[in-house]
């Protein structure tokens, strides 16, 4: 078995002068669930299309389970299933026909890999899809369900998901999360590009953050939180001390008797400063992924 489910080395895609993806080095181990974040146009979809061999890189290379994405796409695709953010399907086919077609295109009887039809039917029931309808008559969310089922039913070693829940309602979003956890428990690798930070936070072991084509952050949420600022909130009865000069402390906000601030690195200097005053309540919490994400893009805390 290959050491990495996904591995890229200096993977680059340029359109003229614009680098849609700039020297991406990324390694995803088998069995990992990795979230891939970034604002619109950061290069998330470009990364995925390069990994799938739909577009070719201007530099560097990518591998899926040790198979070159450009030179061995068919072999690589036997090991993966892909969900795009936009469900472009054949309008004249019904849901059932689409699932049959996509299942047969993925694996056939006799070729060693094939779709488990019982599991497919279970997924159809779980996502409450009416497979007798034509794709033309489906809503956006229902088309997305077809494409999700088509990917999940393969139980492929690697799931590549590009904003897979766009258009799904909260109940279906829960069904999706359940399916991804199932996949992880079975040992499947999941590469999840998403805008929905709570989704990534709930599902992913590691998170990569992309900015203008460059990977600016990659690690577990715990690591990223450790490197990032802690939010501290203190309530005083007496005089409020001046915390602005304390090493590591920033963004001090005073709101009546409550002081909020961010602290980076060791917290000892802040505790010393607080001990001198009359603190009645002290709260501290780790930043949410949303705060980490916004911090990366200069949007606030």
């Amino acid at each position, binding site marked *: 078995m290959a050491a990495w489910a996904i591995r890229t080395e200096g993977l680059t895609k340029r359109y003229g002068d614009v680098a849609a993806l700039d020297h991406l080095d990324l390694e995803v181990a088998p069995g990992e669930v990795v979230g891939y974040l970034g604002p619109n146009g950061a290069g998330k979809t470009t990364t995925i*299309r390069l990994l*799938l*061999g*739909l*577009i*070719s890189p201007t530099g560097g290379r990518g591998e899926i389970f040790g198979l070159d994405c450009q030179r061995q*796409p*068919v*072999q690589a*695709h*036997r090991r*993966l299933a*892909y969900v*795009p953010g*936009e469900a*472009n*399907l*054949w*309008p*004249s*086919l*019904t849901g*059932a*026909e689409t699932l*049959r*077609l*996509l299942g*047969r*295109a*993925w*694996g*056939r009887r006799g070729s060693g890999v094939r779709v488990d039809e019982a599991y497919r039917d279970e997924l159809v029931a779980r996502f409450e899809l*009416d*497979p*007798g*309808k*034509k794709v*033309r*008559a489906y809503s956006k969310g229902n088309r997305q369900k077809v*494409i999700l089922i*088509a990917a999940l039913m393969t139980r492929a070693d690697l799931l590549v998901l590009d904003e897979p829940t766009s258009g799904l309602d909260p109940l279906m979003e829960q069904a999706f999360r359940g399916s991804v956890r199932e996949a992880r428990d079975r040992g499947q690798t999941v590469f999840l590009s998403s805008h929905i930070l709570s989704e990534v936070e709930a599902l992913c072991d590691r998170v990569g953050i992309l900015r203008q084509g460059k990977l600016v952050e990659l690690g577990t949420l715990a690591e990223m939180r450790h490197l990032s600022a802690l939010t501290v909130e203190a309530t005083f009865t007496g005089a409020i001390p001046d915390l602005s000069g304390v090493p590591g402390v920033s963004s001090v906000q005073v709101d009546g008797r409550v002081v909020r601030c961010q602290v980076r690195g060791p917290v000892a200097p802040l505790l010393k400063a607080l001990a001198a005053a009359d603190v009645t309540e002290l709260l501290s919490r780790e930043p949410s992924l949303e705060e980490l994400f916004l911090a990366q893009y200069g949007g606030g805390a």
Partner: protein
Amino acid sequence: MITWLTARRAVRSGVIFGYIFGAAIASSAISYTRFYKTAAQRDALAAAYGSNQATSALFGPAPQLQTVAGFTVFKISMTLILLGAVWGLLTSTRLLRGEEDSGRWELLLAGQTTRRRAGVQALGGLGAGVVALWALTGLITVASGLDASVHIAAGPALYFALAMASTAVMFLAVGALTSQLAATRRQAAAYAAWVLGVSYAVRLVADAGLGLHGLIWASPLGWVEELRPLTAPAPLALLPIAALTAVLLAAAVHLAGTRDVGAGIVPDRASRRPHLRLLGGPIGLAVQLVRPAVTSWWVAIAVSGLLFGLIARSAGGTISGSSVQVLSRLGSRGNGTDAVLGVCFIILAVLVAFTAAGQITAARSEESAGRLDQLLTRPVSRSRWLGGRLLVTVVVLLASGVLAGVFAWAGAASQHAGVSLPALAEAGVNLVPPATTIAGAGVLALGVWPRGTSIVLYALLAWSLLVVVIGGVGASHWVLDTSVFHQMASAPAVPPRWEANGVMAAIGVAGALIGGIAFKRRDLQGK
């Protein structure tokens, strides 16, 4: 707002077609003055075509061939009438139903308007497109009429342009109505195309000298013919044209208000029992996807073949002496039935070539709409997908050719025309190589300039067609050689030229190979 948005696009394509119309008219008129200089030559031409029922059935009657005006009408008007109709139905279904399909229409309707009012505004925009088409055609015709040897006055020139634009108006209205009936752009265009096909068939029978000329009034294309521009103008025939257009437009606007946005009047069944047999892989999918369009083409080819066969004997009987010489200019030799079928098969070749072009644009639209991603991200290689599509295309084309031959034979045999089935089947297969060249060029474009695939295909087709129609009178062989239809021998009038066919097939295969390699290496591209 809606008027402006629609008008902008309608006028743009109206201007392009106006240029094509004008250029075709001007070049017909001028070529006549070059090639038929003396009265004797003109009399011979009139003797050949004046009472020739085969050409009358296909291109309309040919009075006054001794004059530039009469010749121009005969030479070009049927082509322009058909082209105008196709432009009209495609433009209106694209800008009405197509906009609705894409969801843009909903954005407009969310503004301060009603569905009916929006419909009227869009039709106003389409009207601007027709005016552009008519104005440019008229302008170029008037300008070429100023030439001393051509000598056509401004009034008759503008009336001629009006006659040519009138089919565009009627089929714009037909397309507007079918856009209300059908739930998709393709379906709307198909309904309108059927109306056009039936109109042409009725007109063809009326002009075939079978004693059924009264039928001409049963076909909208017949009314245009009865306008008789440049020869014996009869503007009264504008009445049924205007009446039909008004009725169709009123019905379209009425229906636009009664139906839901995005839905059609003819119910599109949302559910059906799955047809799983074909969906085992990319080839099966290709067969399932192209089936509706190919069925329509096959019916069109079979019906045309049958009609041509039916008229061949009686029309062939009118050909004699100088007729044969003139027909030979169109590439047809031999006598009687075979000579007529030789010319008719050029039209069948055009239909087969259109079928080929449709197959390649359908393949490209799989890519541009993003559906191809679904297959190529599974263990399906690009060569397997494209190879499958091309295999289906080749089978479709061969079947189209055989179908053309067999149905022409059936028609001719029913009239005891004394033609053999093997000879006509061979003539049918002879239609395939030009279509192969067109398809190969399309695949080449798909590989190296994907967004231009349909432009390349239809430009090549239109060019080949125009060269045959206009150039038959005697253009330089360098120009003629660029037309795939000119390269094709006019079987069954003459034996097929298998070397030329081999070259055309080889060009097609080479184009497909180079295009296929380029497609394998390039990035997938959406719209």
